[in-house]
């Protein structure tokens, strides 16, 4: 794993107007949570990798001979908590063809990026049936990078199975202050058995669900002579003969839609907004759209 700045990766994907809009939307979230806030120019500090180049104070940098950025201080700091499903299901292939974990980490990075821009703190609760990782809320670029790096390292096909209840429960107990809980999982979750915890979480915090869509087992390989298709949880024996069958795919799509509808119904019951993405490419647009939906809902 080379030293890559995940936040820089997000920035590479964020066009400026979109970033502004996303930040503004996140701003809207704050308004709904805290009434009143300030934006005072605080101080200058050294530029560290991952900081936005737009924040560089060029005059000060020229005087000092090293890059210096302006920092803003906000009275209203929001806690964002990334509640991440790290079960082995997240190491499978997404509908867009990447690993779902890649998309999940990108979503987490986007959230962290936007939060850092506002000076909000980001905490992490990641877990599955056996592991549980918690990171305290942090705002600095480096802390966020470390956190995201750690998160990215947790995904593996041989990881324990998914169990959303554990990170949800931990998030419930660990954060007393009203926060924005961002649940990152896949399209099949939250399942009905998670509804109780989700409802409790919903009472105390804002909750959003960012889900990654699964690739269809029937269409995943382009044809024969490809690697075998296997399920991370099941004994899946899917011979090539059964793949690329239109009739089967249509029926499978129906079943998948029904499953997604179940999840959507659950979220609607709990008044939780969510989104489902296929790949990293549509994360930003969907996320902006989601923030917009949430803001309208809170008016």
């Amino acid at each position: 794993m080379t030293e890559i700045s995940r936040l820089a990766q997000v920035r590479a994907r964020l066009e400026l107007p979109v970033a502004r809009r996303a930040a503004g939307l996140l701003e809207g979230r704050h308004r709904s949570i805290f009434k009143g806030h300030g934006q005072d120019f605080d101080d200058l500090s050294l530029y560290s990798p991952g900081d936005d180049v737009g924040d560089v104070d060029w005059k000060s940098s020229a005087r000092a001979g090293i890059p210096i950025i302006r920092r803003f201080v906000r009275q209203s700091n929001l806690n964002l908590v990334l509640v991440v499903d790290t079960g082995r299901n997240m190491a499978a292939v997404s509908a867009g063809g990447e690993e779902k974990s890649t998309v999940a980490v990108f979503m987490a990075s986007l959230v962290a990026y936007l939060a850092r821009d506002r000076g909000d703190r980001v905490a992490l609760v990641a877990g599955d049936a056996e592991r549980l990782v918690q990171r305290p809320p942090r705002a600095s670029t480096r802390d966020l990078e470390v956190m995201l790096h750690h998160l990215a390292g947790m995904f593996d096909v041989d990881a324990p199975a998914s169990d959303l209840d554990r990170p949800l429960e931990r998030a419930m107990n660990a954060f007393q202050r009203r926060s924005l809980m961002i649940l990152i999982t896949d399209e099949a979750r939250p399942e009905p058995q998670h509804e109780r915890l989700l409802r409790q979480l919903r009472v105390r915090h804002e909750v959003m669900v960012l889900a990654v869509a699964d690739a269809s087992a029937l269409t995943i390989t382009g044809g024969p002579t490809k690697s075998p298709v296997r399920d991370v949880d099941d004994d899946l024996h899917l011979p090539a003969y059964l793949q690329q069958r239109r009739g089967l795919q249509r029926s499978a799509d129906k079943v998948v839609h029904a499953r997604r509808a179940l999840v959507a119904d659950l979220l609607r019951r709990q008044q939780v907004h969510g989104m489902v993405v296929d790949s990293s490419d549509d994360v930003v647009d969907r996320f902006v759209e989601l923030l917009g939906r949430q803001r309208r809902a809170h008016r």
Partner: protein
Amino acid sequence: MVILAAGEVTSSIRWPWLVAVVLVVVAAAALVAWYTARHPRSARSEEAVWVANSEYLQQIPELRAWVRRYRALQWLGVTGLLVATVGTAVIAARPADVSVVNQKLGTRDIVLCLDVSGSMLEYDKEMVEVFSGLVESFEGERIALSIFNSTSRTVFPLTDDYTLVQDQLVEATAALDPVVTYTDDAEALDRYMLFTAGTTGTTDGSSLIGDGLASCVLQFDEAETERSRSIILATDNDLMGAPIYSLQESVDLAASRGISLNGLYGASDWGGSENLEREYREAIEGAGGMYFYSDDAEAVETMVRDVQAQQAVDLDASPEVTSADKAGPWFLWAVLGVTLLVVVQWRLRE
């Protein structure tokens, strides 16, 4: 049709144990393949494409039908493999046609000794016709034709030049036409006269049977090689004149040279004498030959067949065994099996 070179053809398998070997090897390979397919090594997890939440596949109504189809195809493939294996195993074991060829049957010398006096023409003609039919199935046998009346003429000596033999026999058939005894047809007479020229070398007698038979005995060459020698004599034993060899003497001569002698008695229309016939029969049968009285048209053919049967028993030489590989239908089965397997695997995309 009579076959002179009787060959006994039997099917056999050269290495029957190889069938078992091939079957066992293929079965072992199939078992290994099956085992590795069922127990993929964990190292393959890197090659696999991982999906999650695929339980919903079980809820697809059409899936079961497709799985059934898949299984059916698989079994078809197994059937193809089995058929191909069995076919290949049998071919590997080298099924062969083993033919026992009695080369001795090809070392037969037959001299046709025909009395061409007018009364015998009918039988001569038939004899010649039968032999011209037989020549086609000859392989190595030699045949000679000698005709006699008061003296002998060798039409052709012992030879296996069947083209020549056929030509001569056809000619003989045309010439030995019984019609010459009462016709004025110059052409037929000419043919007869030309063919029998030299058989009336002396004027003091006709049908000097003893001399004719002795001449036939002298036809046999290669006395030191072991060959089956037989004379087929056709005569009415109607002797006129003083021969050098009496019938009995010439029969003894033939016997002394190890030549089997078979006689055909031509009962002429003018009625042969009973004494003559008895003398002839006793001479032939005394020498251990077969004697045929020709009333019926089948006589000649029956005689020839009997001669052959008799000789086939006589020849006790070591038979030559030749075997020719003969895959027969097994090759087709193997190809069919492999084709089935290939087609099924193509359909299964594996």
